[in-house]
């Protein structure tokens, strides 16, 4: 479904991605783990063309999307809940969700809204509240809910568990599992919480300073000595 091959991305003169190859197949949950600053978020943004890759190719459902403008890429069926959530703080919850449905099929708004409210009943209670006044967990729910509003075939999640209480983390991972199983949505997720992420994911990749250094099924990576030493022990 998504093939990233030989991707190099630069911020000015700094090379953030140094030739990344990975693949996400339809129906999978794939996770990308790695330390702070490894380039995980940059990869998600590069898939969406902001910034575009300077070298290499990003193929989505057989089409080369490397050079397309961001709004064209996401209209092809990719949605992202980005680093830092980036909800619109001075808009209401409902308006944020309306923004999420911009690249959706016309007429799907009400069904998708119901679906998101079913996944996150909390958002329904807060429908007219300004998003910037909500708690971190609620904002994370909103960021994921907003991404779901466009009925994407590929959902990109950047650190959905960051800064959240363990109970909320469990709830959010449960939702990711549910939408993957029930709606057959493909999920590509960046996480620092390697243990939970690898347990949830079918497959995983490990990134170190702009390169993929390891890959395997979630269980394989969980059992791997290097992964355990670097990302699991003492990490939670």
């Amino acid at each position: 479904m998504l093939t990233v091959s030989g991707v190099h991305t630069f911020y000015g003169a700094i090379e953030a991605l140094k030739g990344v190859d990975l693949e996400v197949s339809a129906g999978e949950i794939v996770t990308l783990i790695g330390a702070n600053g490894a380039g995980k978020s940059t990869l998600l943004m590069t898939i969406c063309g902001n910034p575009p890759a300077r070298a290499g190719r990003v193929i989505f459902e057989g089409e080369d999307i490397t050079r397309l403008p961001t709004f064209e890429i996401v209209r092809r069926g990719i949605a992202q809940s980005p680093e830092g959530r980036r909800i619109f703080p001075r808009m209401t919850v409902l308006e944020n969700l309306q923004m999420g449905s911009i690249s959706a099929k016309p007429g799907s708004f009400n069904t998708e809204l119901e679906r998101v409210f079913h996944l996150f009943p909390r958002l329904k209670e807060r429908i007219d509240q300004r998003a910037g006044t909500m708690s971190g967990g609620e904002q994370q729910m909103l960021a994921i809910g907003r991404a779901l509003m466009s009925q994407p075939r590929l959902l990109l999640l950047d650190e959905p568990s960051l800064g959240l209480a363990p109970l909320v983390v469990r709830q959010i991972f449960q939702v990711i599992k549910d939408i993957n199983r029930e709606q057959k949505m493909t999920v590509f997720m960046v996480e620092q919480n390697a243990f939970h992420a690898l347990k949830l994911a079918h497959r995983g990749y490990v990134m170190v300073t702009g390169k993929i250094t390891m890959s395997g099924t979630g269980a394989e990576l969980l059992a791997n000595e290097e992964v355990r030493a670097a990302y699991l022990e003492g990490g939670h």
Partner: protein
Amino acid sequence: MEYFLQQLINGLTLGAIYGLIAIGYTMVYGIIGMINFAHGEIYMIGAFIAVITFLVLGTVGITWVPLMLLVVLIMAMLFTAVYGWTIERIAYRPLRNSPRLAPLISAIGMSIFLQNYVQLLQGARVKPLPPVVPGGFSLMERADGFVVQISYLQLTIILLTVALMYGFTQIIQRTELGRAQRACEQDKTMAGLLGVNVDRTISLTFVMGAALAAVAGVMVTLYYGVIDFYIGFLAGVKAFTAAVLGGIGSLPGAMLGGLFIGLIEAFWSAYFTIEYKDVATFSILVLVLIFRPSGLLGRPEIEKV
């Protein structure tokens, strides 16, 4: 009391015009964080298109006033919208990711260019326009014969402005375009990630601001009856003052600021000296910038860390 009432009417009319121009400043500032110093020139071009269209209509023999006004408004809005779009495209978009000073200088250059362009095409002399909407209501009369009047033109200006501002607020609050504009104002990267065509949204913001300035240009042409290529400067700076007074980036602020500036100018001219009315206006700008830089309704600027 009667005199006061008359000045109130004059001030409201003037304020409506400043408010319409101020919206363009505040919207552009909101969405791309720059002051579009060429905005006053857009208003001036709107005024010129009004004069030209009136002349053309006169030549072809259309003299029914409501129809004339409608045609003139539509023509002025259409043409200035094209100007607004073009200015953004060639003078600002290429500088989107440059330091903040670059588009500002480009805007000043654009402003000077447009003034000279109109001066070359239309000549430097003032263009007169005979009164198109004469007459008015007499509201009350003082013992010494002073009559409080609201002219039909003043009424038209105030009502049209209220209607436009209402419609405009609805667009911003309720439509998908308005939501996209507010989203771009808050976070352009995220708006793009959700499928908003950010460049197009910015272009449309310029188009909308320009169309409103054009309406102001038409009104001023009718109200004062003379225009020249230089009117955009002073009106632009005053509308900018209005936008800052109301809180730059805030739509209701721009409307309120425009109203304030109009009233201050009218009352100052009436009760003090007409020569110093501009000094009064710009003193307000200085005071606001010193004591309340976020304006009446603006949000305090919070530095992002």
